[in-house]
């Protein structure tokens, strides 16, 4: 192997062909109302943790639904589970349940 002084960048694209979508499927089979998310972002706007850190609940769960699990556990662990998001969600999604479920499915504890 020769070092040419540069590496090969990895693709940024979400590849739905190679991503493992089974875990994502298990997640929304358990909480089908997550599918009703219409990405209004009010959860992220009201988020207690999001006010202090870069945690973005909407983005993380959307990535999880696309099979992008990296960082999801660590990100969801920033959540304080205070429940404000559930109160503001116009689609009545059980957001706290989503946080716990994603952590359970993607964590190693």
């Amino acid at each position, binding site marked *: 192997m020769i070092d040419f002084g540069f*590496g090969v960048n990895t693709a940024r694209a979400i590849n739905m062909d190679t991503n493992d979508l089974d875990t994502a499927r298990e997640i929304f089979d358990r909480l089908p109302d997550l599918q009703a998310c219409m990405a209004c972002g009010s959860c992220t706007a009201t988020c207690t943790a999001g006010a202090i850190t870069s945690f973005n609940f909407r983005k993380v769960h959307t990535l999880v639904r696309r099979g992008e699990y990296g960082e999801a556990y660590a990100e969801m662990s920033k959540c304080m589970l205070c429940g404000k998001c559930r109160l503001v969600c116009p689609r009545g999604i059980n957001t706290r349940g989503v946080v716990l479920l994603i952590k359970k499915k993607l964590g190693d504890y």
Partner: protein
Amino acid sequence: MQKRYSWKEFQKEIADDHYFYVRSCIRQNFFPGSEQAFLNIMRGDLGKDVFEDARHTSCTGIGYHSDIVPLETIMTVVARQFALMTEAGYENLTSSCITSFGIYTEILETWREFPETLERTRESLYKATGRTFEIPKNVSHNSDVIFHNREQIAAQAKLKLVNALTGEPLRVVEHIGCHYAKIFPSKGIGGSEFPYVLAGMVESWGGEVVDYPERRHCCGFGFRNYLVQSNRGYSVANSRKKFESMAPYKPDFIVCNCPGCTMFLDKWQYTLAEMEGSTYGPDGRGIPVLTYEEMAGLVLGYDPWALGMQMHQVDVEPLLDKMGVDYDPSSKYLGKKGKFIGAPEVATVNCSAVDKFYRIKR
């Protein structure tokens, strides 16, 4: 491929004869045989009038796309090429380079949309060189010209793009330079989504074009992305994306109409083989990358070494054998008078030392 009728909607006018020829910076250095082959085919096989003025320069497109050369400067340089053409009494410009072709097209469109820029350019050119120029009647890329004459070449063909052993058509991946039609779809044969310029040649000469998911994707050259070393990882990643996408279709070779693409699709295969150990052709070899002139030259029976194919990073011998080309493998690195011109070191992408098979003469 039968369904690819859409190209018919994007037909452009290609001059039939009397071309003023401008060269490509990259090709002069890396594929000099291809440019010579173009002239030989045009003049010798097709009997066309192609004029070349030794005073013409780089179009400075690489500098322009790397934000080094300003627009006014490149317009003046382009105007000078046109002045040389006008002085020689020609009206049809044909360019060896896709970047140049894109530059000419872009500047002509700019002059059309903003006539004041044309006036300013005339003034600059006159002040700098005392020259005047006419707008060319027709601007084409060399591949357009070959496409235009593809049936005549087919008629004169000594070989077809067919596997000599099995009789199956060769599977060809065609790669079109981004600046050929992605900027002005109507300036390319077949438009930007399904350009037909190379596919037409391949089909006329008996090959089979492979359509694959990343067909439209850029080769990764991207000027700055290659020129700055720390960005090269991005450049090579684009090529890899294409290779990974085309590899399952087992192409026999890649044909390009752009200097940069030919170079990078060829050389990045070596780089990837050395960096990651991955190759995309059969038996741990790379996929040979040809220019359209080399492809035309092989069809017309030219000697591959005369076409400059020893300059390739990925060895072409497997392809030549497959096509049934009559050539002398041992004289690969022998120059015009039989003088050894030097051979590259053995590279992973070529799997094993070529001279083991062919006893290459030094």
